[in-house]
């Protein structure tokens, strides 16, 4: 039970990071982006690549951070991966979604996002191989925090939670203290009024993609660090991300955070009663339940 709670919060904080970008885009651009989860994979693999690059460049960087299996080079690589994933998201928008916004309705964009997700996922498979891999092949032992109830915790997992927390606090500060944050909040609340207040809508949409992509990269990295890297990790996560966004209420950044935690916890706790094989179906049940009970989610507004 305690272990499930811990795992749930861990997965939940990763989902929260991923769902923030999803909910932003879904709210501002009014379409369900099925390819968002692929940005998580992309970010994780970008980190892998640049880890190797930095590791080759400098010996100092190969050293591990204290207690963790994460090396300095990997830590730097994550930063690069964030930037690259954000840029990729913006480029995909430029090439596909922006054109379709002019041509057709939101459902066409949903469909295009299906296509984009296929392309991204399989390009990753093509480039990096289909087999799953790890950032670090060393075996990391978990520490037993408590025997009864059993609680096994890895240092990396604590790191992931702290990282997620730090990022969310940072995001909160950006949103509430900086004009960039105000711009995002403003556009997601009322695009017309935002324009009236001198905000460039196109630039803000790009910003939202970059932010969503960057957060997705971190989420992907955290997920891969805790589990493994695999080209299909996006496919495995997409429904959970949607569940987090819907539970929180589309458009609410704080809702996405809470939604992520709820979905993570629910998925983890549900496994106490349901066989593990049914895990992929749990987010679906959460979505259905939310839509029945509270179609606008916890913090969402009806639209």
């Amino acid at each position, binding site marked *: 039970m305690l272990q499930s709670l811990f795992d749930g919060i861990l997965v939940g904080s990763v989902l929260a990071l991923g769902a923030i970008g999803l909910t932003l885009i879904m709210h501002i651009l009014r379409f369900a982006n099925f390819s968002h989860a692929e940005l998580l994979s992309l970010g994780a693999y970008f980190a892998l690549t640049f880890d190797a690059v930095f590791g080759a460049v400098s010996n100092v960087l190969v050293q591990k951070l204290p207690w963790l299996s994460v090396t300095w080079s990997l830590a730097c690589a994550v930063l690069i991966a964030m930037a690259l994933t954000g840029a990729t998201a913006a480029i995909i928008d430029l090439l596909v979604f922006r054109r379709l916004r002019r041509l057709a309705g939101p459902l066409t964009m949903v469909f295009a996002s299906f296509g984009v997700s296929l392309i991204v996922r399989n390009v990753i498979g093509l480039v990096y191989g289909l087999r799953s891999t790890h950032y670090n092949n060393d075996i990391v032992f978990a520490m037993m925090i408590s025997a009864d109830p059993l609680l096994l915790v890895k240092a990396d997992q604590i790191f992931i939670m702290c990282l997620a927390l730090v990022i969310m606090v940072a995001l909160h500060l950006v949103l509430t203290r900086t004009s960039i944050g105000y711009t995002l909040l403003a556009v997601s609340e009322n695009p017309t009024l935002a324009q009236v207040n001198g905000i460039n809508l196109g630039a803000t949409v790009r910003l939202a993609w970059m932010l969503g992509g960057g957060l997705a990269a971190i989420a992907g990295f955290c997920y891969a660090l805790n589990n493994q890297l695999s080209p299909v990790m996006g496919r495995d996560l997409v429904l959970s991300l*949607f569940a987090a966004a819907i539970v929180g209420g589309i458009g609410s950044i704080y809702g996405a955070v809470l939604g992520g935690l709820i979905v993570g916890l629910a998925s983890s706790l549900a496994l106490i009663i349901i066989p593990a094989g049914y895990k992929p179906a749990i987010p679906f049940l959460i979505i259905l339940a939310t839509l029945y009970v509270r179609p606008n989610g916890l913090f969402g507004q009806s639209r």
Partner: protein
Amino acid sequence: MIGLISYLTFFFTIALILAIAVLGLNLQWGFTGLFNGGVVAFFAAGAYGLIMLGGPARANEFGGFDLPYLIALAGGVLLSGVLALVVGLATTRLRHDYLAIATFGVAIAIESVARNAEYLTGGAKGLRGFERPLEAWVGQPQLYSFLFLCVVIVCLVGVYIALEKLVDSPFGRLLRAVRENERAAQSLGKSPAHIRLTAFVIGAMIMGLSGGLYATFYAFISPQDIAPILTFQIWAMLIVGGSGNNRGAILGTLVVWGGWVGSGWALTAFAPASMQLYAGSIQYILIGCIIVFTLLARPRGLLPERLTTTQYAESSVEKR
């Protein structure tokens, strides 16, 4: 020559079975504007339903009632319909992108049931041992394959005619109205939620029929056959062919399936051995590109929907 004929038989059998599913999706998306992101779930319900009802008994497991083929097939179709009803009741009243997400989720849920509920679906190893109808009576396998293709063609033509009749009728007009402007339709006394649900269930049952035929053809169904890629393929077929046009849907199926099979063959024949492992990835990328490029370059497909007035009145009146 014989090899070529039997290969073509195989190709067309699968293509035309898929065409039936594409027609079902066309009813949902092309005519009613319902985004079904989980086509494969209803396909799977038809396939599993058929084999569970018509297959041989399995020890300590549910299913295997050994029912007559047609009853089993109808049962599979019905199962798809029931699944669609359950999903539809929950989602057809919701915003459209929620429907897309929920149906996408259904497909994943069904796949995980197929993989895990061994007493029901045989788990990962699937359901086998199904005896194809009249196979023993026909005897010769090649002849049987050919006859089966004929049956598939009959089914496809039947579904096509039935759907044409349906979409040309006042019912079809109603579907288009709901697709075009739900609020206006409601203000004119129509009940959009009910209409959407009806179209969703009928479309799903057609997908179920497709799944049933597919399972008959292979006499086997396993989770491998209902991978999410099938949903993407079926969507690509509809978009390429032209949604809202049944002939376009069939044309799109042949084009995309031809491209899929052709690319698979070309990759096996020409790609270096080291790349063979990635043939699947390349094909998936192709499907993704087809979807995206069609939407960007020719969003109405090869055979776009035509603007026609429903002609259902007695001919004497039209001459006026």
